[in-house]
């Protein structure tokens, strides 16, 4: 059976060049970067290289602005808690209703346990935040605005530059969770004007278990993990060198492959979206048609349930997801689609297909054929008919 992996937004296969680097730092260059001897010094120098590679990918001003963490989630936590608890006393956060749970649940914790006030900005039908709403929400005690670069479920790209410009004007710090944007979009922290940015290795063909936070020089931020003072005191703990070096390599590869990579993905994505919308009646695209991640297609099919769709696709060798990969096993409709005003039923019939380095045109065509057949089969015994509940 053909196996087609279309869940690259959940995680990617590690690139061979990256695997090689990870292995080298387990087997040969295994010193602790804090050690003074040669085993340690070699690794300390390498760590700086990885920092440089990540800095270049997002055009940070210097490698010292990159801090490695144990995941994108940890970087998000560090950005938000690190600013809000930095002693300046500002306790208001502005974010959006469509952020990743790493942001939303961190904000909820701050509301419940640290006396913070959080504004969750609404989005339009495409999942987009209105920059004017950011301006309106900024108050005297606003510590931080955190708006994601691009959404992990529907792929919509946010107007980050406009929002960052407003923050700059108002003197408020701006963080962006760019876990999904990095590697697909030409991100430039200086031109974009953001103060902090989160990225994660396993979304760009690096290993799981390492992320990074960009923190513009001069931004005052507190650690959430204390100890030996690694990462210039911002994230203690022996550095996860193999994974970090892998992230560095993955960042370098990502930089070299842009923008060709984005263009190729966009072509394949549009072939997939057009193919599906043409072939399957009562299907519709979620998210913005153009301002979307090159790798992301998110489509709702009336009258069928997402989990059943995924299961049938899986039995046909196609790996996809509905909403974000979520560890709770809950089947509540995605908070992103709900915030966009998509009906509960349409939300439940949504499938996210995310392309990657290894996706071929044949994979796309196989997916269109398979998905069309699967939807037809499931609709045949759906009590809602093919048009869905609202048409009954």
């Amino acid at each position, binding site marked *: 059976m053909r196996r087609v992996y279309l869940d690259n937004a959940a995680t990617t296969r590690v690139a061979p060049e990256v695997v090689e680097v990870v292995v080298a730092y387990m087997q040969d260059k295994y010193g602790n970067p804090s050690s003074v001897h040669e085993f340690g010094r070699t690794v300390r120098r390498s760590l700086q290289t990885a920092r440089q590679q990540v800095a270049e990918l997002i055009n940070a001003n210097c490698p010292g602005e990159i801090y490695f963490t144990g995941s994108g989630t940890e970087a998000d936590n560090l950005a938000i808690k690190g600013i809000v608890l930095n002693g300046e006393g500002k306790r208001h956060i502005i974010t959006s209703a469509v952020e990743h749970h790493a942001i939303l649940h961190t904000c909820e914790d701050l509301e419940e346990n640290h006396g913070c006030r959080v504004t969750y900005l609404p989005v339009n039908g495409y999942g987009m935040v209105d920059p004017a709403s950011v301006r309106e929400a900024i108050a005297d005690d606003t510590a931080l605005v955190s708006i994601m670069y691009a959404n992990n479920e529907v792929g919509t790209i946010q107007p980050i530059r406009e929002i960052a410009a407003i923050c700059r004007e108002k003197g408020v710090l701006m963080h962006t969770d760019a876990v999904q944007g990095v590697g697909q979009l030409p991100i430039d922290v200086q031109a974009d004007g953001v103060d902090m940015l989160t990225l994660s290795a396993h979304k760009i063909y690096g290993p799981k278990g390492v992320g990074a936070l960009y923190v513009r020089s001069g931004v005052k931020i507190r650690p959430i993990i204390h100890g030996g003072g690694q990462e210039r005191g911002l994230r203690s703990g022996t550095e996860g060198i193999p994974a970090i070096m892998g992230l560095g390599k993955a960042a370098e590869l990502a930089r070299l492959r842009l923008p060709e990579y984005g263009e190729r993905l966009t072509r394949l994505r549009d072939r997939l979206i057009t193919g599906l919308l043409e072939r399957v009646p009562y299907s519709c695209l979620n998210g913005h048609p153009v301002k979307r991640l090159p790798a992301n297609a998110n489509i709702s099919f009336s009258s069928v349930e997402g989990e059943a769709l995924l*299961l049938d696709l899986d039995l046909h060798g196609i790996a996809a997801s509905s909403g974000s990969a979520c560890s709770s096993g809950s*089947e509540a409709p995605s908070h992103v689609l709900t915030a966009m005003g998509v009906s509960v039923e349409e939300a*439940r019939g949504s499938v996210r297909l995310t392309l990657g380095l290894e996706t071929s045109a044949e994979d796309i065509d196989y997916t269109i054929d398979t998905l069309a057949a699967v939807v037809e089969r499931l609709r045949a015994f759906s009590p809602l008919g093919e048009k869905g509940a609202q048409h009954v």
Partner: protein
Amino acid sequence: MYNDIVIDHFTNPRNTGELADADGSGKVGSPTCGDIMMVTIKVADNRIQDVKFKTFGCGAAIASGSMLTEMVKGKTITEALQITDAMVAEALGGLPEPKLHCSNLAASALHEAIKDYQAKQNG
């Protein structure tokens, strides 16, 4: 996640659809997940002669509907009323824990169909 019996009933569900000349019809929905299960029955001599189901729901829901129709065909009304959702799950060789509470509506839909049939008889 699912065992082979479930996958079989999901892939090749038995008795899907809606009986055109049904004697009873039942439709239930799960409030937690929004799943819908619909069962139609044909009854003769107090026995369920034919049964069909339709489902909007996850793989477990589809397999449950399919398994139920196999379990119930030929049973008397009294026997059919004794079938529970747990029995359907058991006949499927078990369902994953998070699926138990929300996708296992087949027996309930059957009972609704029988109630509908009985109401028509009495009405």
